[in-house]
């Protein structure tokens, strides 16, 4: 399904500095304006505009019947969204932090993911579940989890994540318009990232990865918060004569095998980078499937450069936990390049 821009080419405003928060906010505003069945509710998304201000101003603009504060219960939020979707609505709900999506786990995994299959396609659940995720914001415990692996290993869910304001807008518009339920993961540490942009904007389709920097020696696969880290590594690597290609996966489930394999076959080496712990993390799927599809083209195993296999640490220890550009370059060095 394509997203129709609400504004025509003529009245597109001149590019301005837009934060990811603002882009998400505008995507919700345009979705609400375009389609009356779109509803926005959750904890503190109304008057306050969300703890990250993503829903700021929407209650005022669309009224409390379209945008409202729910009681504080995540299973309740997802469970009632399911009922609304069955009644023909298109709820966009927020889990305040991703550790707070866990109380809704059963509703998401046993119903959101399975309703369409259960009913032979008679009942679709076009629900968008927005989840601010990942760390690097100095948050107290439970405020920096990366839960994408849970959702990605659940058949029936679609999982996307933007790394920049333009994608934030475009992916969210497409997610809201999708007939399939979407877990929309927002990288908290990138909320305040700005880009020059005119909204509305339409970027690549929501199921496609994007090459965000071309290179020939190695491919860095990543998404969300660590795209910036990978680009920084590529920059540094270039200074040391290493030509690094960076792919922003954007869509975690489904995985864009085509774009990724094309790159890996060119570079013959790849690494996957994410904040989440390594063991059983999303990077495992990436490494496994990219190896399967390109084994004879690889000159080294796919590296996983990730958080350690420990719970997300307290703020003073984040810097040691998170993958950095240096750690990426160190890891690349660990390969036997003569292989």
């Amino acid at each position, binding site marked *: 399904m394509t997203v129709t821009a609400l504004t025509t080419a003529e009245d597109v405003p001149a590019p301005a500095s837009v934060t990811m928060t603002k882009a998400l906010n505008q995507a919700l505003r345009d979705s609400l304006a375009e389609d009356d069945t779109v509803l926005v509710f959750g904890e503190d998304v109304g008057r306050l505009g969300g703890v990250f201000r993503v829903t700021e101003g929407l209650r005022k603009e669309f009224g409390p019947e379209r945008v409202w504060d729910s009681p504080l*219960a995540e299973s309740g939020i997802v469970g009632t969204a399911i*009922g609304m979707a069955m*009644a023909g609505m298109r709820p966009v709900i927020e889990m305040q932090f991703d550790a707070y999506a866990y109380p809704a786990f059963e509703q998401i995994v046993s119903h959101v993911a399975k309703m369409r299959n259960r009913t032979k396609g008679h009942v679709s659940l076009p629900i968008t579940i927005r989840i601010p995720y990942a760390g690097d914001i100095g948050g107290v415990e439970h405020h920096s989890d990366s839960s994408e692996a849970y959702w990605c290993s659940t058949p029936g869910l679609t999982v996307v994540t933007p790394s920049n304001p333009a994608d934030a807008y475009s992916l969210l518009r497409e997610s809201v318009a999708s007939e399939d339920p979407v877990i929309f993961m927002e990288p908290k540490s990138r909320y305040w990232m700005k880009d020059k942009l005119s909204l509305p904007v339409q970027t690549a389709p929501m199921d496609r990865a994007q090459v965000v920097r071309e290179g020939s020696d190695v491919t860095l696969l990543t998404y969300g918060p660590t795209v910036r880290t990978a680009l920084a590594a590529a920059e540094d690597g270039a200074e040391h004569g290493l030509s690094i290609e960076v792919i922003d996966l954007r869509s975690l489930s489904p995985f864009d095998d085509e774009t990724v394999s094309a790159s890996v076959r060119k570079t013959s080496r790849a690494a996957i980078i994410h904040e989440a712990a390594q063991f059983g993390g999303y990077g495992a799927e990436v490494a496994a499937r990219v190896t399967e599809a390109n084994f004879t083209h690889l000159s080294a195993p796919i590296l996983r450069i990730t958080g350690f296999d420990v719970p997300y640490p307290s703020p003073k220890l984040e810097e040691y936990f998170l993958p950095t550009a240096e750690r990426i370059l160190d890891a690349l060095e660990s390969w036997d390049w003569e292989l």
Partner: protein
Amino acid sequence: MTIDVPTSRRALPQLQPVSFIGADGQPADVPADGLTIPSDRTLLGLYQKMVQVRRFEAQVTHLTRQGRLATYPSAAGQEAIEVGATTALAPNDWLFPTYRDSASLLTRGVPVTEILAAFRGDWHCGFDPNEYHTSPAATPLATQTLHATGFAMAAKLKGEDACTLTFLGDGASSEGDTHEAFNFASVWQTPTVFVLQNNQYAISTPLREQSNATMLADRAAGYGMPGLRVDGNDIAAVFAAVTAALERARNGEGPTLIECLTYRMESHTNSDDPTKYRDAEEVEHWKQFDPIDRLEKHLRTAGVLDDETAAEITASAEELATSVRDAMNTEAEVDPSELFAYVYANPRANLIAQQGKLEAELAAAAQS
């Protein structure tokens, strides 16, 4: 000087369950505000449905024992709730049943094969929910109470005249989702009726180890929601209570919790062994409260039911039983490709590839 607080509130429901027709078929006379006994004509219709439903349950249980269905949770003994509550719904209302509520699906008009598809292992949900305004029967306990609440909220927001009714068990009442549903429904004042079938057991766990409340209907007060306990084996009481709750809901007066006191006469499912956890005497004791016997007595006393009508009703139930047997005699065809057909609206490369592999495998097997 003290903080301002409200000075009145809704009282706890009456202790004695609402009942119009006693277990002996005589007037029970435990009314509640605003509830009146349905007409004998209505009761006769309900009687017929209960007889059919009981025959249905017996037939399906029998087929399950024969191994024709994998598993089946029977609502035998709970027919007054299944039929009474479901019949009170308008066609445009939506029902949110559980695995125990096949009888309500039948009452709602879902065809036998479509009801039994799940238990025969054909497909998870055998019917189109939109066609019968009935959600797939929920297996994860209490989850459906939230769906019913959300659906009702949507109807309210759209200004549509649709209420929702959901069943839940005494066991399910302990799940967090039940609490969240009661709370959301009451805060949002959704047109939802929660029908709690308190059949005294959650598999083997007796009510006293499930709850320390005097009655589960007492929960409603804590949400500012009206709560009511009815004799769940008296279909007159169930029908009246649900009808009144639906009317309140339609008038914008929000949700209601109705606890129906009843008893699960059969084992939890065919694979359960209730001798491990309850006495035969207890089951015997509850037989005297049978919902069909008492209504039959009442209707006969009232002169609405005679032997001829009774025979017709029995015949209609037998016809239904035959149709169940017939339906279960014809094996449903399953198509392995359907594994992949409905997971996503937007097709996915990995599923297409896997489907291709499976089809090649099947083709090869067909060759050899």
